[in-house]
């Protein structure tokens, strides 16, 4: 009888454990692949701003002066574009969803002390190299030769990487 058909399913369901999770009594479960929220490893970030430029909702702000990386989790659409484009593989997607809040908060990440020191060291070396190049050039000028080709190489290489990543639109 067609009547009994669904009754059977209903009776079976009566003796099975619930199909739903008891959240928030128990913890929520996530898949390995779930796109939950963005985290930045402040030990490797070089504040290059590629993520800021690639983010379709402009949820990320990089402040080089203050050495901070800021995300507005309520603007982020978890598209993973920043993760795919980060040249240092500093960003990653954690599987837990953004926690609820009552205001549109911002999350500010400051560069770790180690990374601050590393960046300062890098900047110091770059300045040294530039100074050395300048010196060499002055000498060459003094010697009357006009060979300017070597100078450009000492410029920061981060900007080049930005260009390299630009074909990865969408």
């Amino acid at each position, binding site marked *: 009888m*067609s*009547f009994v*058909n*669904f009754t*059977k*399913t*209903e009776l079976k*369901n009566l003796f099975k454990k619930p*199909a739903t999770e008891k959240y928030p009594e128990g913890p929520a479960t996530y*898949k*390995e*692949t*779930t*796109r939950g929220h963005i985290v930045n490893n402040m030990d490797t970030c070089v504040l290059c701003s590629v993520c800021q430029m690639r983010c*379709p909702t402009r949820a990320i702000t990089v402040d080089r002066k203050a050495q901070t990386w800021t995300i507005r989790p309520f603007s982020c*659409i*978890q*598209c*993973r574009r920043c993760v*795919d484009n980060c040249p240092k593989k500093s960003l990653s*997607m954690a599987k837990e969803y953004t926690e609820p809040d009552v205001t549109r908060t911002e999350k500010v990440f400051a560069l770790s002390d180690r990374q601050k020191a590393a960046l300062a060291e890098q900047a110091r070396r770059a300045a040294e190299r530039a100074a050395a190049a300048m010196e060499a050039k002055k000498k060459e000028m003094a010697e009357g030769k006009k060979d300017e080709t070597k100078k450009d190489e000492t410029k920061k290489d981060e900007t080049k990487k930005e260009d390299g990543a630009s*074909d990865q*639109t*969408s």
Partner: protein
Amino acid sequence: MASKRSVIPFGPQHPVLPEPIHIDLITEDEKVVEAVPSIGFVHRGLEHLVTKKDFGEMVYVAERICGICSFGHGYGYVNAVEHIMGIEPTQRAKYIRTLLFELSRMHSHILWLGLMADAFGFESLFMETWKHRERVLDMLEWATGGRVIFSIMRLGGLRKDVPDEILKSFLPELDKIEEGIRACEKAFLSDPAVLSRLKGVGYLSKEDAISLGCEGPFLRASGVARDNRMRGYAAYKDVDFDIITSDDGDSYGRCYVRIQEIYQSASIIRQCIEKIPDEGIYVPIKGFPNGEYMTVIEQPRGGACYYVHASGKKFIERMRVRTPTFANIPALAKTLQGCDVADVPILVVTIDPCISCTER
């Protein structure tokens, strides 16, 4: 003595449908003699955003036209721009696109079954169907990382590969879903109480369905064999499937078509998993699109048209989407004529209305 006519407003907020559509029902006693639909409550101006977001970023906006056929909207836009730019995605990308498209279709149809059960007041059937829908959402989450918006589409292919192990793990899941839907199918298609709410309700003849420009399962339930997947976009030309139709032309027929399409989608997914080649998923794109293109794809609710006009700049000039719900509203007004007031919620649900994507 002629009965007095009165107007009953249906919507914009109505318990049967979480989306705002307003219908003025002109009634005589308990019979509807005329229905005047009006839309325009959730216009968001998404098409205009095409001039504000660059053509790569627009994919994310296109996906957000609708929460249920999000993959299809992303695909429609990408398909149009790829044609303009002359890009041919790899076979693997095409197969994964087809597979995700069919998963979305399953998700949409199972969701619809639940809404239908809810509309005729069979709450336990509603929950049972949505239990199976949850499995489909889990599969989508495994494949893409998202449950509603997948963000996997990209001009030139996909943003992320779906590994073969994950694809293989879908096979037992599909079996379980099919088994569950078979149990529900008996309730939908042979339970006398359900049949009394579906059989003969909202009849639409084949001729009317064609002349009113219906789309999708609503059209196929009136016996018209038209399915845009037969055009062979993505990998549809490489998989085997038939157009499912029903000659009933009533709510029962629409239920039947959608249930059969769930099984058909499962079969297409199995074929995709079997045939999928091992290769890259992305072809790099160069330059900006220049030209125009119009494409029609089969969304779960019917054929959707995407028109893109670009002029070689970073921002596309015009994008236009025609969604299946928009095409089905005139036929809805026609089927509402002569029905009982109590059947109105069921008939509104049978076109599977998606008002947000109609108004964008």
